[in-house]
């Protein structure tokens, strides 16, 4: 079950990225994946299905709301939206990540 382990590793990070993707408004799952891939300039490539456990987990924890609506091509799609709790969590995670990545960068740049 090697695959499972790497999944665990990125779970927290993936959830943060999902929250970030939804910061600007409701999106369906495919759009979230697309946004992450494009914004990261194809660097962060997840197995796209892995997104859904993350989405559903966040929904269960009350950080996201979900609603069925029509997509751009007029198909029924499930749209996710940040709740107030979700927004708070995103803020906290962003701060944490900024500190962490700065620290990692600092360490890696040391000569």
């Amino acid at each position, binding site marked *: 079950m090697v695959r499972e382990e790497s999944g665990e590793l990125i779970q927290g990070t993936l959830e943060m990225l999902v929250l970030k993707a939804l910061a600007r408004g409701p999106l369906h799952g495919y759009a979230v994946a697309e946004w992450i891939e494009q914004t990261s300039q194809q660097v962060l490539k997840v197995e796209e299905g892995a997104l859904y456990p993350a989405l559903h987990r966040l929904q269960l*924890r009350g950080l996201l709301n979900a609603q069925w609506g029509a997509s751009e091509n007029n198909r029924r799609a499930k749209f996710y939206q940040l709740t107030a709790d979700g927004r708070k969590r995103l803020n906290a995670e962003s701060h944490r990540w900024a500190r962490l990545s700065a620290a990692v960068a600092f360490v890696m740049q040391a000569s």
Partner: protein
Amino acid sequence: MALHQVLLKIQSLFRRRSMASEINEELEFHQALLRDRLSRQGVPPAELDMATRRTFGNALRWRERLTELWQFGTLENLLRDLTFSARLLRKSPGFTAVALLTLTLGVGANTAVFSLINGLLLRPLPVPDAEQLAVLRMEEGGPQPNYSFCTPFFRSLERNHDVFADVFAYNPDILQVQGRSANENIPGMLVSGQFFRALQTAPLMGRYLTPEDDRPGGSPEGLAVVITEQFWETWFDRAPDVVGRKLIIANVPFTVVGVMPKQFIGADPTRKPQIFAPLSTDPIIDAPRNHIDDGIHAWWLTVGARLQPGVTLAQANASLATVSRPILHAASDDAEFIGEEEKGHFHFVAEPGSRGFAYARLLFRRPLLAMFSMCGGILLLACLNLAGLLMARGAARERELATRLAIGATRQRLIQQMLVESLLIAILGTAAGLAVAPLVSRSLAALLLSGDSGGLLDTSLDVRVLCFAACVAVISAVLIGLVPALEATAGNVNDHIKDGQHARQPRERRRILPRVLLASEVALALLLVVGAGLLATSLVRLFKSGLGFDPKGLVNIAFRMDKQQLEGDALMRQYQQLGEGLSRQPGVKNVSFEFIVPLSHRGWNGRYGAPGAQPQLMYMNSVGPDYFATMRIPLDQGREFTWADSKASGLKITLNRSAANLLFPGKEALGQQVIEERSHSTYQVVAVVGDTKYRDMREPAPPSGYIPIMQDEQKKPSLTAVVRSDGPQVALASAARSLAARLTPTIPAPTLSTMNEVLNDAMNTERMMALLSVFFAGCALLVTGIGLYGTLAYATARRTNEIGIRMALGARRVGVMVLVFRENALVAGIGSVAGLTIALLVSRALGSFLYGTSPRDPWVLLGSVAALTLIASVASLLPALRAARIEPMAAIRCE
């Protein structure tokens, strides 16, 4: 889990189907967009599926994960496992039937015996603060403590107690209560004044008996009794004005002063008295006997007490130790008696009494525990057997399990499913076992207490029994399921899928574990068979040990004459008429009378001697004319008694052979004089007869003497008619009843029992243990046979290819048979050796239950091994024959 989450999950629980379709729709929407994008990017249509899968991952797996997220994982998995297991069980009805049957047997037997143990040994009395109760006993230096008190001891204890709030005594009795036409026998109890106060149960109506009632002549209002709710129902039809009504007991009017509720059973869990009468009325109720005036010669009372609040048992015992000597000295002037008791360091001891006192407990503790371990053995056997079968089936399910592992199920999940399966079997088996247990335990209790008239044991299911059954279910589920589950899910996924059910490299561990299971099964079965063999042999030897009389066709009819008017010679004429009436019944050959029915555990002894010689202890009986012919006791010398042997004609005695040899060694006993020690009466020996067993079948016939009933010291002896008859018993019973009703209308209906029943009661414990152990041994053999057969059949089926190839390559059918048969022969051989070794080590524990049989009786051991070998051979021969019939071409083509 946060509240929010729980609520959402509960919501989803109610829209399971739409949840599933929503998840599907969401995932498919994504995959559709993804396909569009990929095809825009120039992926050729033929590779679209692969590419989508590569980018998206395994959609099935994601769906599984999402569904799991929305569920209460464990619970829902459990439900799914349950339905799956139920389906599996339905699919293999043979396996399921065997599993359920063996478990029902194991659990049923265990629960039944446990209810017995619970009723007799564990359950506290249904009274408030039962833990404050104590049971008193006497230590007299003998091998066994004495629980039977005499009146003087008890009255002294009752008068001066400081550590006890109340001290009470009771004696179970049969009361003669006047009914519409004649007296009826009603089980009752004589209780002392503080009895009810100590047991603290409020009466349903009226009041209970108090120390005022327990005085000679009763309280100023007269003699009082308390009845039970049940008696109120059957006798008074629940009349609301029952308090104050009269009951004629032993021809004396008593007033009903109260009714006790149903749950009140007194202080002995094996008794169900219907009437409680004051102890002081014994001279009336037991007339013409008087246990109270008999003083230190009547040891008839069971004594209990309730501790003062805050007083421990140790403090109570310290106090009892100081009063023991003064109480002993106050009880009697008999210096010899006091000296004898003081030599044994006589003292009273209090022991925990929350469960009351039951004499049956002293008798049946060890047999019950022995039976319990036997039942445990059969349950263990059933579990081992099922584990073996499941393991064989698990091996057959290899491919299915491997496939499930491959598509993402965890090993834990599979083990859980298999444990659920065994739990399902265990629960079903336990439920069935629980359903039959009350029936079994009731009949066992009846069997156990059959020698004890009025004895009754409540073996109903209670919380303790149910907890026990639940524990049994869980433990057996784990025993059955865990090893096979671990075994079946171990190992490499790919190996399983590739190999499936084909012949492959033997993996040593896999082949050894089932064999160990089977071998232990064989060993355990052998152990049970040896135990059963020993107990049954002992019973047969006991049967054949010879009684000295012929019990076949002998019927006892007991008349209770102690409360009617006639006495002395007039009563004897009455008996003579009864005898003549009985002898006119069809099929009746001889009729006589006796005071003590042999082997009924009653006894009467005295010291008799030749003039000038040391008196010897002898067991006595008083018997009627024609007695020895009726009993078919050989009359060596002299004559039978006749109705002419009255008190006026000089005292006569008949000795048995042992007594004659004891009193007159080397001399002719006939015509000699024998002197009784206490009364100094002189008897003339009129006959010498053969030896017979007296009280206990396990002991050799003691020296005994017979005197004619006409010369009995008792004024109104209650005699038993012994009838030798080959006619119908029912007719005899009704004839006896109508005769008694005509000749002595006031006595209770005579009770009839065959001598065989008396013998069965006398061998009660042996009989029950032998019966049960033979039954269990039979079951053990059957279960083991099924186990050996089932496992081998599975294993052989899996080797069909291999056998086909062997045969194609020239192996002969006999060779194939040997190949298959060998598998079990080895297992059975090892199991037998192990079982025999253990049997030799532990069979000594049975020693005390055996009569004239060594716990290592070689014939029994040999026979057991032979029985097991036979069963094992039959069980192994069938699969071997089937293997030999395999058509090589068909087998190989299956590939």
